[in-house]
């Protein structure tokens, strides 16, 4: 680790032999102990640059330590900066990746809601995916979807974690002003569940749910559409037979405990958290309704993407990179550890581990195993967008007639993402090949109107 020691620390050795005591040169240490690299890549690079400069100024290590002990690190740093542009060197080093254009904006703010759907956006911070692409991103925890929307519209956030229907709704001006918004990457697929209060343990048939009070995170959410779809398939009218209210995810468990709700179709960790605290049980994973359904998304305004093309590309690359990392089962435990602290999700680590690894307690006394309980796949299939639009139309959120395919391709940037994935050495899927089957019923994206008309319970 000597390479990452603070070179301005008088007690640190920067000698030819490694400070870890191993029989190798300091410069080789990183290669030999690759797994031990610290999280903040920018900080790491800074250290590397500082060490190189200090070693050049003081070839004899004892002199450097003596000098630092006498004047202190801050003075030394200032003295060296006055003759050598340390900051510039750090920056040049950090951006030195092949083919990287100059970033228009390096300090970015990305908003997120503390749920596991946002895993790639969150983990990219502690695990250094943003720094790797030369960005200094601050991930900001936000209280609810409406606030995320407003802070994004007011440009306080450069990019944000949104529910995948939100960019569609914002672009169409449904529930907000119409502002062109884009969704270059999906965060997660699956990973939601219907949680019921423990007192309903024997009411597992949705036909018994008349009068239940349910919560979903937001009106424009997959959760809302999936819950409506689910109860409607069982013959209940979601607007008349049950009540559905929009409650911010963190408040769902508290409301379930207070008997203010009978259940919710919500994002994790709050399904697993209800089990952890003995308040509710997991009735159904949404994966069992539609395996591979999209949920949350990484969204940016069209304006940001066109004004800062290089920053936008670097940001998107970081997200695709992080999503690919999160997709791998073997990384999930490490991710759970990275995102559990107060700064990010603020949850017990075991809860996150159960969600991400898919070996979980179901709240009824059993341990279930489903490795694909949540999965991460960035590709923004246009077929997803068309399905979402049909549901917006079905439940009367979307009043006007729209060109489904055009809105889908304007907002869900499948082509951009495919190009970016190719550039990064990943294989993008064929954008035309996606079959969607929800609860056994196939969906043909070429015939959205026929699809809506095929449902018995609808508002349009």
């Amino acid at each position: 680790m000597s390479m990452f020691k603070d070179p301005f620390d008088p007690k640190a050795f920067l000698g030819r032999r490694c400070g870890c005591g191993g029989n190798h040169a300091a410069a080789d240490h990183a290669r030999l102990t690759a797994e031990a690299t610290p999280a903040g890549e920018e900080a790491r690079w800074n250290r590397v640059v500082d060490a190189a400069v200090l070693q050049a100024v003081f070839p004899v290590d004892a002199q450097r330590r003596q000098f630092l002990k006498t004047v202190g690190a801050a003075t030394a740093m200032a003295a060296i900066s006055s003759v050598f542009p340390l900051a510039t060197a750090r920056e040049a080093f950090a951006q030195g990746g092949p083919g990287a254009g100059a970033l228009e904006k390096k300090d970015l703010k990305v908003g997120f809601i503390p749920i596991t759907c946002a895993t790639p956006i969150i983990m990219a911070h502690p695990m250094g995916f943003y720094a790797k692409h030369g960005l200094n991103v601050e991930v900001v925890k936000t209280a609810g979807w409406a606030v995320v929307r407003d802070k994004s519209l007011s440009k306080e956030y450069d990019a944000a974690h949104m529910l995948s229907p939100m960019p569609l709704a914002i672009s169409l001006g449904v529930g907000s002003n119409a502002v062109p918004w884009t969704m270059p990457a999906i965060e997660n697929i699956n990973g939601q569940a219907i949680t019921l209060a423990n007192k309903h343990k024997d009411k597992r048939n949705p036909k018994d749910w008349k009068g239940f009070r349910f919560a979903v995170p937001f009106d424009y959410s997959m959760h809302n559409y999936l819950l409506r779809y689910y109860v409607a398939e069982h013959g209940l009218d979601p607007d008349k037979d049950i009540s559905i209210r929009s409650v911010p995810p963190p408040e769902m468990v508290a409301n379930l405990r207070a008997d203010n709700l009978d259940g919710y179709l919500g994002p994790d960790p709050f399904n697993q958290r209800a089990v952890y605290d003995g308040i509710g049980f997991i009735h159904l994973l949404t994966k069992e309704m539609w395996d591979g359904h999209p949920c949350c998304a990484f969204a940016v305004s069209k304006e940001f993407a066109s004004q800062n093309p290089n920053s936008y590309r670097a940001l998107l690359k970081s997200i695709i990179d992080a999503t690919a990392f999160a997709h791998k089962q073997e990384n999930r435990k490490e991710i759970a550890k990275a995102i559990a602290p107060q700064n990010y999700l603020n949850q017990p680590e075991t809860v996150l581990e159960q969600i991400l690894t898919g070996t979980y307690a179901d709240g009824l006394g059993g341990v279930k195993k489903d490795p694909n309980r949540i999965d991460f796949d960035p590709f923004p299939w246009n077929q997803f967008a068309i399905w979402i639009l049909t549901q917006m139309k079905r439940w009367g959120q979307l009043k006007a007639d729209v060109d489904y395919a055009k809105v889908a391709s304007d907002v869900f940037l499948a082509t951009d993402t495919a190009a970016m994935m190719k550039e990064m050495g990943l294989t993008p899927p064929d954008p035309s090949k996606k079959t969607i089957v929800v609860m056994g019923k196939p969906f043909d994206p070429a015939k959205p109107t026929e699809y809506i008309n095929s449902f018995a319970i609808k508002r349009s």
Partner: protein
Amino acid sequence: MAALKNSLGLRAGLLSLAIFCGIVATWQIATMPAGGSSVVVDPEYAKLVGAAAATGSTTALPTPADIGVTIWHHILDPFYIRGSNDKGIGIQLAYSLGRVLLGFALAALVAVPLGFLIGMSPLVYRALDPFIQVLKPVSPLAWMPLALYTIKDSAISSIFVIFICSVWPMLINTAFGVAGVRREWLNVARTLEVGPFRTAFKVILPAAAPTIMTGMRISVGIAWLVIVAAEMLVGGTGIGYFVWNEWNNLSIANIVTAILLIGVVGLLLDQILARLATLVTYPE
């Protein structure tokens, strides 16, 4: 007489202490984990859930001892920064206080001159009265969406919300105080041919000062109430955000800590203004 007064203070203090001990003891007994709960679950399952859920019950409220530990924990390290979303409770309080003082100062800057004007002119008083009466009872949370939408900046929005909620008591009290200055004093000033500005500063302001200070005291209390709600909604920093963040984690011990701290800081703010008020009071 003094002895009686002392003993009254002493007895009140003892009673307070007894009430406190009573509350804590009841709480401790009520929240003690029920011993010998016999629902046995699969050990593999028990590892995955909280201790209470493993025995078939729900996680209980923390005991006073748990809360004591949490408070001690926060007192030991109030100023840490572990990332932009995780800062020590001292830092969160400082953010909240900063917002409150800024919003309150702005409100005072507007309310005192405007209140003066309203108090001096019955016409303006009548004209503005309906607006004040309608806007005064609006809750801070109701202002927030409008503020976020129009101001487009969450930091300024929360300050605006404090401003708009704390401006009314000061405005009304200033107007009331100014309107209530004794006629004789104004008449004396007029007979002595004192100019209008001099009358305002030398006669009306000192006469109305105690009422204005009372308005300010009410306002600072309201501002402190509002900040917690505003920060819970907007997030980012502040004691309200801290409460919300710990609500995410269903960490009641941390929330109780925050409640106690909010109470203590509110008390301090109130006491400071009460002291200031004694400086401007005068015997009739």
